[in-house]
C-alpha cells in the first residue's frame, strides 16, 4: 500500500470513521486526480459520513448541498436578497437622495452585500482553503439540475450577470452521494470516481460499533454485530443500516446490558426495525433463536454463520406469507 493511502486510512480512523482499503484508495485518488467522488450504497452505510470525516481530517469547512425534487440553480448557487434590495430603494426614496443616476442605484443593489450565497457559490468562492463540498442525495434532484451541476463541476466557475465571473481559487473536494432512486446521467458519472459502499462485514461492523459507542465491551459489540449480520439477511420490509446498529448498541448500553438477552432485545428492537410488520416478525421466539444461535458460536465463526441462521429464520417465516 502506498504510504499516502495508509495515511488517509489512519486519518479517517482517527475521526472514528472505520474504513477499508477501497474507500481510502478512492479518497486518495480523488485528491490526487482532483475529481469528484460519487458514492452509492444502501441507506445507512455511511456515505454522507465520508464527506464529514474528510472535512474534519483536512481541517477545512464542509459545505453541504442537500438535494430534493425541484431543487433549482438559484437555490443551489445564489439568489439576490430581494427584500433587502426593495428596502434599500424605499429608504433612498424616503430620504430623497438626489443626483444619483438609475445606473448607480442599480449597481448599488446588485453588489455583494445583497447577494445571498448558496452552497455551490460558497464552495467556489471559499477564501482561504479548498473546502469539502457535499452534494447529498443527488438522485433526488431533477435531471435538469444534474446538467447544471455538471457545468459547475467541470469549470468551477460561475457567472453572475450583474457582478461578473467568480472562479474558484481553491477547487473544492467534491463528494456526491446517491441512494440510487434513479440512474444518474452518464455524463455526471463520467466526471466522477465511483465508490460503492456495501453493508459492513462482521469484523468491520464490530470495529465501527466499538469506535462509535463509548465504553461498550468487546463481547457485546460482537453480539450486536452478529445479530445485525443475521437480521440484514432476513427478508424484511426495511433492512437496518449501520446507524441502526449504533443506535441499538447505545440503547442496550443505556439498559446496562453487557450481553444480549431476550428481554432487553425485545424491549429495544424498535431501534433497529422501523416497520411494524418487521417487528412482529422478529420479536419473541425468532429474536430468541438468533440470540441463542449467536451465543453458542465462537466469535470467529459468527461472520460465516449469519447466512444460514438467516435462512432458518426465513424458512420459519415463510408459511405466514
Amino acid at each position: 500500500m502506498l504510504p499516502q493511502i495508509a495515511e488517509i486510512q489512519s486519518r479517517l480512523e482517527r475521526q472514528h470513521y472505520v474504513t477499508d482499503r477501497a474507500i481510502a484508495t478512492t479518497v486518495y485518488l480523488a485528491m490526487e486526480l482532483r475529481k469528484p467522488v460519487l458514492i452509492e450504497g444502501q441507506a445507512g452505510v455511511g456515505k454522507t459520513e465520508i464527506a464529514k470525516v474528510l472535512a474534519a481530517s483536512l481541517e477545512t469547512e464542509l459545505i453541504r448541498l442537500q438535494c430534493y425534487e425541484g431543487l433549482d440553480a438559484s437555490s443551489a448557487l445564489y439568489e439576490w436578497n430581494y427584500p433587502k434590495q426593495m428596502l434599500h430603494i424605499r429608504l433612498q426614496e424616503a430620504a430623497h437622495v438626489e443626483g444619483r443616476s438609475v445606473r448607480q442605484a442599480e449597481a448599488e443593489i446588485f453588489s455583494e452585500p445583497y447577494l445571498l450565497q448558496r452552497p455551490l457559490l460558497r464552495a467556489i468562492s471559499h477564501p482561504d482553503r479548498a473546502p469539502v463540498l457535499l452534494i447529498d442525495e443527488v438522485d433526488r434532484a431533477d435531471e435538469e439540475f444534474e446538467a447544471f451541476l455538471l457545468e459547475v463541476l467541470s469549470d468551477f466557475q460561475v457567472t453572475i450577470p450583474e457582478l461578473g465571473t467568480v472562479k474558484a481559487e481553491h477547487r473544492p473536494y467534491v463528494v456526491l452521494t446517491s441512494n440510487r432512486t434513479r440512474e444518474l446521467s452518464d455524463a455526471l458519472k463520467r466526471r466522477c470516481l465511483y465508490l460503492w459502499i456495501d453493508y459492513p462485514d462482521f469484523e468491520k461492523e464490530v470495529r465501527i460499533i466499538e469506535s462509535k459507542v463509548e465504553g461498550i465491551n468487546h463481547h457485546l459489540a460482537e453480539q450486536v454485530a452478529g445479530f445485525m449480520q443475521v437480521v440484514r439477511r432476513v427478508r424484511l420490509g426495511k433492512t437496518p443500516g449501520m446507524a441502526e446498529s449504533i443506535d441499538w448498541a447505545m440503547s442496550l448500553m443505556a439498559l446496562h446490558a453487557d450481553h444480549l438477552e431476550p428481554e432487553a432485545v425485545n424491549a429495544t428492537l424498535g431501534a433497529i426495525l422501523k416497520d411494524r410488520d418487521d417487528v412482529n416478525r422478529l420479536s419473541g421466539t425468532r429474536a430468541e433463536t438468533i440470540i441463542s444461535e449467536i451465543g453458542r458460536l465462537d466469535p470467529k465463526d459468527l461472520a460465516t454463520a449469519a447466512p444460514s441462521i438467516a435462512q432458518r429464520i426465513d424458512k420459519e417465516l415463510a408459511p405466514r406469507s
Partner: protein
Amino acid sequence: MGTPRPQARHADLQRNILGFCRLLRERELLVSPSEVIDALRTANAVDLGDRQELKVALRSVLTSKPEDIPVYDWTFEEFWRSAPPERVEERVEDSQVQSDPNASQGDDSEPQPAEGDDDSSEATEELEMPLYSPVETLAGRDFSAFAADDMAEIARAILVVAKRLATRESRRYRATRRGSAIDLRRTMRRNIKYGGTVIELARKARKIRKPRIVLICDVSRSMDTYSRFLLQFLYAMQNTLGRVESFVFSTRLTRVTEYFHSGDIHQALDRIAAEVPDWSGGTRIGQSLKSFNDDWSLRLLNKHTVLIIMSDGLDTGDASVLELEMERLQKRAGKVIWLNPLLGNEDYRPLARGMSAALPHVDLFASAHNLASLQALGRHLVV
C-alpha cells in the same frame, strides 16, 4: 519498480491498461476515452507492486454502478490473471516477441517456463477475440433451447438489452419534461412577498410517474427457465421502472421481493429456488391469484400498476376460480399483461382451460420466450 528499462515498462503498462479498458468496454461498462486517461493517471499514482491497490483504484475510475462491480472484478482477475502487474507486463512483452521479431530486444525477458508461455498466449487471444458474443445472434432463440453452459451468456445479453431500453426510455422522459407550463396559483402566492408584482414565475412540469410493476411468476416445472429470465430482465430495468414487486407460485403464492434487495440477482434466484417450498412443482394459478387478491392487491395495485403474470396457463385447479380472480385483478390494476412462452411456438393456440378463462381479462397477451420478445415487452411497460 526498479527495472532495467523503465521506459519500455511504462509503455507496456499503458498498453495493458488500454487493453483492459477495451475489454471492459466490450462488456458494456461505461469506459470512454476520458476514463481511459484517468485510468492511466491512476496507474501512475498508485503502487503497481500492490495488486489489490491497483484493483480497487482502477475500480473507482472504471465502474459507475453497482452492477458494474462484479463484471469489473471478474474481468480484472481474468485480464491480470493471478500474477502481479509486473509479471503481466512481461507477458505482453513476450507475446510481442512472438508475434513481432522487430520488437525483440531480449535483454531482460528471460525465456519463461512453459506454463507462463501458455498463459501469455491465452491472455492475448482473449484481447483479440472477445468472449462476449453479440446480442443479435442470441435474440431469436428460445430460452429453453440453450444449454446450461450458455445461461451466463444470455444473462449478460439480457442486461445489455435492458440497459439499452432503459436509456431510450429516460431520453423520452426528458423531452416531455421540457413542455412545462406556468402554474398560476403558485405564481400568485410566491409573489405576494413582492407586493403582488409578478417577479418570479412558478412553473409546473408534467409529472412523470414511473409505472410500478407487480410480477406474479409461475415457477412450476415447465416455466422455470422462462421465469428466471423474465425476473432478470425486469430487475435490470428497475431504474426506468418504478418499484418491482415480485411473487412466485406453483401451488402456493410466495412474495419474493425482498430477495432481490441484496443486489446480486443470481444469488437471489438461487436462494428463491432453494427456499420457496414448491419451486418446480405443479400449478394452481387460480388459488395463487386468489391469495394475491386477498392479501396483497389492496396494498400493491392501483391504476399506475402494471401487473404481469407469467404462466403457461396449464392449470390443475378450477378454471372458474381463475376467471373470477382475473376479473378482480383487472379492475384494480392499470394494465394486465399475461406472458406465455408457449406463444412463441407458432402452432400454439390458447385452448388450455385456464388460459381461455383468463384471456378476456388480459390487456396484453404476449410471449417471453426469447430476447427479442423481452425487448418488445419493455415497450409495453408504461401505463
